[in-house]
């Protein structure tokens, strides 16, 4: 059975967006290959690594595990929506200042996930940060710098 092209209407980073996708596309494929938003990365493509993490209707999801067709009417937020123009968000600045990235592949997923944490829990404990980000894998930093960056963005003193 051949898949057909479908039209999807949704909001992406506060902009009403209509895009054409293959019916078999994941949201990740639609973002990267149809819409040109390449911030979300394909790591494992099976829900283990979190590199494709985006915010969908207020919850973080792995966009490799969402069908593009499911996004009709949804509110999607990606890493591209964090900065205002050239102005990085406090979380993004904290990642730079704490050197919370090396190769950078995992970073968009961490940023989207951590932003969602701080929205619902502005003063998280280290334990809460680590558990919230357990679905995001980083093979460079050893995580400590990422945790410190989130703590800094939360206004906590970072040792």
């Amino acid at each position, binding site marked *: 059975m051949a898949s057909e092209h479908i039209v999807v209407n949704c909001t992406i980073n506060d902009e009403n967006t209509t895009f054409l996708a293959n019916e078999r596309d994941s949201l990740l494929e639609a973002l990267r290959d149809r819409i040109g938003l390449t911030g979300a990365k394909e790591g494992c493509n*099976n829900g283990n690594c979190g590199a494709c993490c985006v915010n969908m209707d207020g919850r973080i999801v792995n966009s*490799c595990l969402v069908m593009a067709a499911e996004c009709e009417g949804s509110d999607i937020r990606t890493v591209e929506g964090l900065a205002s123009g050239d102005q990085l968000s406090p979380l993004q600045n904290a990642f730079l200042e704490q050197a919370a990235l090396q190769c950078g592949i995992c970073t968009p997923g961490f940023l989207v996930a951590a932003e969602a944490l701080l929205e619902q829990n502005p003063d998280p404990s280290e334990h809460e940060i680590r558990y919230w980000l357990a679905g995001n894998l980083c093979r460079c930093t050893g995580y400590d710098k990422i945790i410190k960056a989130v703590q800094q963005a939360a206004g906590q003193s970072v040792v």
Partner: protein
Amino acid sequence: MQAVKYARAESVEEAVSLLQDGGEGARPLAGGTDVIVQARERTRDIDLFVDIKHIPEVVSISHGGDGSLTIGAATPCYEIYGDDAIARNFPILVDSTSLIGGTAIQGRASLGGNLCNSSPAADGIPSLIVLEAQVEIAGPNGRRSVAVEDFCTAPGRNVLGDGEFVVKLHFPAPATGSGARFLRFIPRNEMDIAVTNAATQLRLDSDGTVNWARVAIGAVAPTPLLVADAAAAIVGQPLSEDTIAAAAAASSAAASPITDMRGSIRQRVHLAGVLTERTIRQAAERAA
């Protein structure tokens, strides 16, 4: 990805009809955290996803006046562990739903999906078993109900027939003096598949006698297991080191695991006993 099509069902009847017309290659789509991977990696032949998340009764939580609970099959984990009344009255469901995957998985994954994926290592199913959940199934011949311990039939297989899907899960009110606990063993802190898991619900009389219990274990057999002998070992007397040890031995005896990359037969048989012991003790703490 296979050439999979997508259909959004607006009602239970429409979902049944789409699944029936779609035949063997049609699958309900709840959170998709298992089934989308299976379609992509071709471990299941799937050519149609029927999205059931736009049917209100499939994605809602309702508390009965008698303390009973109904959870729509596709209700995501975060809504379950974020529900205050569930946290208060059914904390074992928080145990399970808060350790299935990471945060992004919990934003989509559901107890109904966990059940229908029918993995022997499912972290939702032992809790459903000890809570005596009833599975409400819709299909071409209307609705039917199945006890959750009878739902899974083999790894990845269950009692669902053509055109059928799980609409919701019903939980009876826990009686006064009840406590329940789910635990999983994995070699790290989070984001892993159970080497072995276990759940216990028990009920204590005012004098401390265990007057009712259920014990279930997972990842030690082709399906999650209700272990009647483990419950029988603790019922009828107050908990003691002897009765708890007897229950643990009963779980180890009921386990018939395989050796794979996650654990050996010997380790899993041992863990079935250890986790049974710990869930009994911690369920009793919650009951007190």
